[in-house]
């Protein structure tokens, strides 16, 4: 298989990363692990730079620029995993880290054998990818932009919001990440990769000092695998209003409308609890997909690896190919290749070339997210490339691909989805989220909820949350919007595994219509 070499001019791999002794350390570690009897060993050196800038009421309120640099050695020995990580960039130190990984594998094998376990770690085959290089799609590395320019733009936007009537406070945040990875294993694969991501966010707060009531509203701009152009570039021109077809988000439009949206929410009536038809905007639906489909279709969860922590999954392996997950309109893909996706990469942290595949087809569970161990364990052939570690100090675990609900090719736009709704709500923007440890019962809120009466969009209501069971919810999906409503949204902070790891992941989806979903009044929930 030829290497993926996505390195167009202007986006070379950071020379500071390439100047590190990548291959020397890898050779020392892998050789030592092999000498000590490892049947497989892999080496991963990472340099992850993270920048944060925070403003309160347009004034700097803290920033940081941190860089994680280190390497990890993972081995399979006596049928058990061993893992160790270090930071000293010498061949001798790398060999010693390999020795520690071997020692951990031996201890693990010893304990498991003493307990009578027959579990043996085996890995699915993967073609060798020699000297492959991959760089994500972006135009301007945000770390090349002067800090003053970053905080200046956030301050200007904050001031614009603060100047609006009814806005008492504004919080602004910008997170940026540059992630460089070098991977090598004893099979001969070596990959060098670089990706960029960022997440700008502004939240306006309205406080009624007399009554003590307050409300807030946050921008809908999703985190993306793009560069600084996301804040300054050409905005998209989708009729949907917030699709990102250009290089930049429509910041001017969103900042202009946010105070009006907030003011309306402050005055909005409290929702009447009951069942409603919901038209859910992609700015909200992405998070429901993440929690109720993304995590539920992780095979490691379904098998029990996460049972003590994040939990298992109702979508157990015995139901593959038969579980009626949702409506026949439901087509969900796992994708590690989507341009600008937060989980997009060329090769995963086990040297597997990334792919896209079906998870749910015509409403039926047809696939899982895999790493090499999972793929072999269940005889599923090749891994689909979902191994990821968030730092050089962490072991790769099966992490989420960009899991996306596909639009109907000739589907309606969002306004057309309102047309058939007699008594409903239109939900926009994510806010609170929670789901149980098998991914059945969930409760979400939104930034805004508008009434829909007899096909017409009305004003906002507040104090709402929607609560449902995953399969009931997805089986109630009656219409899926067209490509013009599609948005790739996502999160920077998906948590999983022990020790805890954070991953960034995108979810694309159109607007969609769901029938008779339970709406709570959160004021009534808080009362007693």
């Amino acid at each position, binding site marked *: 298989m030829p290497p993926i070499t996505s390195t167009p001019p202007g986006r070379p791999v950071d020379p500071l990363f390439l100047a590190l002794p990548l291959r020397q350390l890898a050779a020392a570690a892998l050789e030592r692990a092999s000498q000590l009897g490892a049947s497989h060993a892999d080496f991963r050196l990472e340099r992850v730079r993270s920048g944060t800038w925070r403003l309160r009421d347009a004034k700097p309120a803290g920033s*940081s620029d*941190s860089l994680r640099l*280190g390497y990890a050695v993972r081995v399979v020995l006596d049928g058990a995993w061993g893992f160790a990580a270090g930071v000293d960039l010498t061949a001798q130190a790398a060999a010693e880290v390999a020795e*520690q990984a071997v020692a951990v594998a031996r201890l693990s094998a010893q304990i498991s054998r003493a307990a009578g376990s027959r579990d043996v770690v085996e890995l699915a085959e993967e073609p060798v990818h020699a000297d492959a290089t991959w760089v994500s799609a972006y135009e301007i590395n945000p770390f090349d932009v002067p800090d003053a320019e970053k905080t200046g733009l956030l301050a200007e936007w904050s001031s614009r919001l603060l100047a609006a009537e009814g806005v008492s406070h504004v919080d602004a945040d910008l997170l940026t990440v540059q992630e460089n990875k070098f991977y090598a294993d004893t099979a001969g694969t070596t990959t060098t990769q670089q990706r960029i991501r960022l997440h700008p966010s502004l939240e306006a707060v309205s406080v009624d000092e007399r009554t*003590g009531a307050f409300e807030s509203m946050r921008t809908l701009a999703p985190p993306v695998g793009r560069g600084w152009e996301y804040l300054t570039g050409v905005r998209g021109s989708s009729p949907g209003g917030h699709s990102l077809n250009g290089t930049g988000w429509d910041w001017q439009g969103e900042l202009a409308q946010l105070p009006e949206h907030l003011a309306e929410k402050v005055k909005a009536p409290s929702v009447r609890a009951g069942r409603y038809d919901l038209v859910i905007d992609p700015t909200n639906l992405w998070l429901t997909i993440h929690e109720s489909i993304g995590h539920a279709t992780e095979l490691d969860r379904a098998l029990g690896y996460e*049972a*003590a922590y994040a939990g298992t999954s*109702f979508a157990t392996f015995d139901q593959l190919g038969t579980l009626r997950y949702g409506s026949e309109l439901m087509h969900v893909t796992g994708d590690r290749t989507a341009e600008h996706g937060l989980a997009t990469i060329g090769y995963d942290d086990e040297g597997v070339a990334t792919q896209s595949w079906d998870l749910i087809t015509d409403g039926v569970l047809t696939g899982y997210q895999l790493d090499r161990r999972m793929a072999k364990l269940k005889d599923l052939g090749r891994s689909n490339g979902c191994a990821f570690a968030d730092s050089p100090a962490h072991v790769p675990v099966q992490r989420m691909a960009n899991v996306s609900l596909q639009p109907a090719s000739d589907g309606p736009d969002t306004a057309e989805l309102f047309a058939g709704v007699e008594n409903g709500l239109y939900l926009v923007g994510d806010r609170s989220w929670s789901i*149980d440890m098998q991914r059945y019962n969930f409760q979400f809120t939104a930034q805004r909820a508008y009434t829909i009466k007899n096909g017409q969009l009305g004003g906002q209501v507040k104090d709402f949350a929607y609560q449902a069971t995953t399969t009931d919810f997805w089986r109630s999906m009656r219409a899926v919007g067209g490509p013009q409503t599609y948005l790739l949204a996502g999160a920077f902070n998906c948590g999983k595994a*022990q020790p805890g790891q954070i991953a960034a992941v995108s979810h694309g989806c159109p607007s969609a219509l769901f029938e008779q979903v339970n709406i709570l009044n959160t004021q009534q929930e808080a009362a007693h």
Partner: protein
Amino acid sequence: MGNQHTPHELVERTLELSRADGCVVLVDEKSSANLRWAALDSAPGSALTTNGVTRGRRLTVVATVDGAEGTASGVVAREAVTGAELEELVRAAEAAARAAGPAEDAGPLLAGEVFNGVTASRDFTEPPAETSIDVFATFAPELGACFARARAAGQALYGFANHELTSTYLGSSTGLRLRHDQPTGTVELNAKAHGASAWAGAATQDFTDVDVAALQASLTERLGWGKRRIELPAGRYETLLPPSALADLMISLNWALNARDAVEGRTVFSRPGGGTRLGERLTDLPLTLRSDPAQPGLQSAPFVIAHSSTDDHSVFDNGLPVGATEWISKGELTGLQTTRHTAATTGLPLRPAGDNLVLELADQSAARTMAELIAGTERGLLLTCLWYIREVDPATLLLTGLTRDGVYLVEDGQVVGEVNNFRFNESPVDLLGRITEAGRTEQCLPREWSDWFSRAAMPPVRVADFNMSSVSQAS
């Protein structure tokens, strides 16, 4: 290369290189060891899965630059820094400070004998504390025996044991030389059999006090309770919350104690018409919620360690003493968290946030154990722990989340069976006012937040009308 300097030498060398008006250097030496285990496909027994050891060093430079409009700060942190890269790091922090503009939280760096009469920890020049896989020397064989017992009993066993040691060296251009060693150890055990699931967790400093056999025995007892299944609908129930579950709710409350947000009218602790709810009674019981760096078994840093400025911390406060602080005193809200900056702007006392949390009645001798609370229950639910807790409404601090790994029905002082799981919607502030009985405070492991906050001691409590909003099918 990276470790050719000892940590205190790195602090001194960095401060020598500084050309800024002020400089704070933090060196964090961190080591960790962990074991994780699972029973694949719920097969009886267990096997170790992803286990590892790590070693790392982070160097954080806070440069401060004075200007006509105020003092600016720049924070740059790097791991695996070599001696040759130090100067580049210092210059980067200084450049960040110059680009940042005046910092809102700016203040003079702490100097002189600010920290309990000293400017230097006695062990400042000593090597860092370190952990390794050897921390499990006794625990690991006991765990192996635990796996074998689970296999024999038909139980699937899952869990995680983690030990971390972080030695933080803090030096400032104003003369501070402080050091803190922070051990953090946790162990969690989850057993499943016949459709029932049970969990137990413990916090430890060094794993010498972890009795894994006793933890497993408690799980076996609970799985036994699970042999009788009882379906109950959503509703409001008298509920017994064990220390672990209460800790997760009180941690959420603790995170809402920010003084500035309260004064600005943005939290549950804001008073309508302006100001805060300080002085307001939150519960009729004489419950005290406090933090104390010297709390036995829960020791935490006795001075501020701030790697960046946030709503709760200021880099300018690095080295500021953190003392014993009561947030709620005998039922009354008495403390909100401040930095020196927010204390000055709000007019409230200086109260740095703590890294442990204790809730207790003043008279512990009269407080009952959880077993005694169960014995005194006519009809109510007994929870194990809570999960996926998220804020729904900051105005009331309404939280949602789920019960997990064992909800039991208590009737006439006896556990009579296991109940389905529930989603709850509750505010910990409102819940404080509905605690009708608090038991004996004990050290516990918060289940939901232990990745960020593991040092807690809480009582078991009896709560009236706990809001189980809906039924969860998860088991």
